[in-house]
C-alpha cells in the first residue's frame, strides 16, 4: 500500500487544485456512462466530454505539481496528485462528485459546471501564469461544446414529456443546493486575485445566473430558490460519495507499490 502525499497549504496551489480536481472528478463521473447511455450517440458524446475533462485536469495537475515544488513542498506529477492524495486534500466542488444519477441529473449538472467552467476559462486566458492562460485557451473551446450539448439536452428534457420534465425538476432541485459553493470567495480567491492568477469565484456568479436563466427559461424549468445549505468540497470536506469514488479510482496505484503503468 502506498501512503498518501501531503500538499503544502499555499493558496495559489489550492486555487489550481480546486479547478483541476473539479475537472477530474466530473470526468470520472461522466466516464461511468460509457456503455450505458440512452443512445449510442450520447455514449460517444459523454465519453468525449469525460476525455476533455480528464485532459484539462492533467494539464492543471501538472501545473499544480510544479507549483507545489515552488512553494516549499515536493514537486509532484499528475498521477501522484490524482492517485495518492487523501480525500481531505481533494479540492473539487461537491457538485462534481455526486453520483451520476439519471440522464437528467447528468445533463443538468453538466450544464451548471460547463457554464461555470466556460466563464472561468474565459477569464483565465488573462492569467498572469502563461501556462494557465494557455491551458484556458484550449479548454475554453471544449467547455463551449460541453455547454451547448448540455443546453440542447436540458431544453429537450425540460420541454419534452411529463416524465422528462418531472425528472429534470427533481434533478435541478437537488443540484441547485450545491451551487453556492461555486461562487463563494475565501482567502484562496483573495490570493489568486492579488497575484493575477485568476478571478475570484464570486465574479462568475452574475454571468452564470444569466446564462442559466436563459437556458432554463427555454427549457421551461423554473430557477430554484437560493439555498441555505452550503457544500464544502473545495475546502476538503466532501460528501460521503467521495470516499467511494476515490477508493475505486486510486486502488491500483495504492495496491501495487512501485508499479509502472
Amino acid at each position, binding site marked *: 500500500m502506498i501512503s498518501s502525499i501531503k500538499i503544502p497549504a499555499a493558496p495559489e496551489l489550492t486555487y489550481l487544485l480546486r479547478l483541476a480536481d473539479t475537472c477530474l472528478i466530473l470526468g470520472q463521473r461522466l466516464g461511468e456512462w*460509457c456503455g450505458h447511455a*440512452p443512445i449510442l450517440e450520447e*455514449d460517444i458524446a459523454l465519453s468525449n466530454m469525460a476525455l476533455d475533462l480528464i485532459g484539462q485536469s*492533467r494539464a492543471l495537475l501538472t501545473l499544480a505539481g510544479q507549483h507545489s515544488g515552488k512553494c516549499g513542498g515536493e514537486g509532484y506529477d499528475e498521477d501522484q496528485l490524482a492517485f495518492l492524495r487523501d480525500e481531505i486534500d481533494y479540492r473539487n466542488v461537491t457538485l462534481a462528485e455526486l453520483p451520476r444519477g439519471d440522464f437528467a441529473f447528468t445533463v443538468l449538472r453538466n450544464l451548471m459546471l460547463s457554464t461555470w467552467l466556460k466563464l472561468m476559462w474565459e477569464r483565465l486566458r488573462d492569467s498572469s501564469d502563461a501556462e494557465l492562460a494557455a491551458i484556458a485557451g484550449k479548454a475554453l473551446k471544449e467547455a463551449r461544446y460541453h455547454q451547448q450539448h448540455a443546453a440542447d439536452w436540458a431544453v429537450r428534457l425540460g*420541454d419534452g*414529456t411529463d416524465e422528462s420534465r418531472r425528472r429534470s425538476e427533481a434533478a435541478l432541485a437537488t443540484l441547485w443546493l450545491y451551487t453556492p459553493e461555486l461562487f463563494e470567495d475565501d482567502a484562496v480567491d483573495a490570493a489568486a486575485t492579488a497575484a493575477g492568477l485568476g478571478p475570484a469565484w464570486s465574479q462568475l456568479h452574475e454571468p452564470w445566473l444569466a446564462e442559466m436563466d436563459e437556458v432554463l427559461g427555454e427549457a421551461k424549468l423554473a430557477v430554484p430558490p437560493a439555498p441555505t445549505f452550503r457544500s464544502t468540497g473545495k475546502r476538503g470536506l466532501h460528501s460521503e460519495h467521495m470516499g467511494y469514488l476515490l477508493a475505486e479510482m486510486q486502488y*491500483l496505484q495504492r495496491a*501495487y*507499490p512501485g*508499479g509502472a503503468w
Partner: protein
Amino acid sequence: MYTQAMDTMRDEGGDKPALRTAEEAQLQQRFDNRIDAGDFIEAKDWMPENYRKTLLRQISQHAHSEIVGMLPEGNWITRAPTLKRKAILLAKVQDEGGHGLYLYAAAETLGSSRDQMLDALHTGKAKYSSIFNYPTLTWADVGAIGWLVDGAAIMNQVPICRCSFAPYARAMVRICREESFHQRQGFDSLLVMMKQGTDAQRAMVQEAVNRWWWPCLMMFGPPDDQSPNSAQGMRWGIKRVSNDTLRQKFVDAAVQQAEVLGVTFPDPDLRWNEANQHWDYGTIDWSEFWRVVGGDGPCNRERLADRVKAWEDGEWVREAALAHARKSELKEAA
C-alpha cells in the same frame, strides 16, 4: 472487433437459383460477373436476397460486437491506474462506439433500421462476438484485450476492407486503422508492466494472457472443414481468407510478440514447425466455443442484461427528444 457471423449462422441455403423471371436471371448473371471481376457492390445495386440477408446479419452482428465490446473494457475506465491510461482507455472505448455507429449505418443501407437491429440484439435473436462474454478481472486484461483480441480482430478485418459490399468495405478501412492503434496501445501497456513493473504486475500480465489466449484463437471461428458457410461467403467476396489461415497467421505473429513481452502462452503443444515454417498449436476446445456462442459463457447474461438495461433506462430520454422535436416542428409550422 470481429464478428463470427459467417460461421455461426444458420444455413440459409446459399444462393439457390430460385429465380422466376428471365430478367432476374439476367440480373443474377450480371451480379455474378461483377463479383467474379472483383467489382464492389453498392447499396443501390441489385443483389440476390441471400447476399443481402447474409451481409445484413454479418454487419449488424459486427456492430453489436462493437457495442457489447464496450462493456468489458469500460469496466476499467473508473479504475485505470494513471490519467494517461484512463484517457487512452476512454478514447478507445469511445472509438468502439464510433465503429458501432458506422457499422449500423452500413447495415441500414441494406434495409434494416437501427432500432430493428437493436431489438434483435436485446431479444437474443442476433449474436455478437463471443469473446466479449469473457470477464475483465484485472487491469492487465485491458492490455491483453488490446494486444490479443484487437490483434485477432485486425487479422479478421483487414480482408473485409476488400469485401464485395462497398459500404462495409469502406467502414472497415477506417475501423482497421483505429484497431491497429488500439493494438499497439494494448501491447505498450503490457510492455511497460513487464519491463518496468514489479513482479506482482508481471504475474498479473501472465495470468491475463493465460485466460485470453484460447478464447482469442476461437475468434477465428470453427476449423475450415467444419465451416459449411465459408464457401458461400468466399464465392460472394464477403469472406476472403479462411478461418484456419487467419488463425495461423495470428499465432505466428503473436508468438513473436510474446517473446518481446516476456510472456508465455498456455499451450504445451506450441512449437515451431520447420517443415511448414509455422507455429503448431494444440487442440482448441470447441465445446467451450459452442457453449459460449450458445449463451453459457461466463458473462453472456450480464452483457445482454447491461445492454437491455441501458436501452430501457434510456427510453424516457428518447421519448422526450422525440416529443420535443415534434413540438419544435409544430412551432415552426405555425
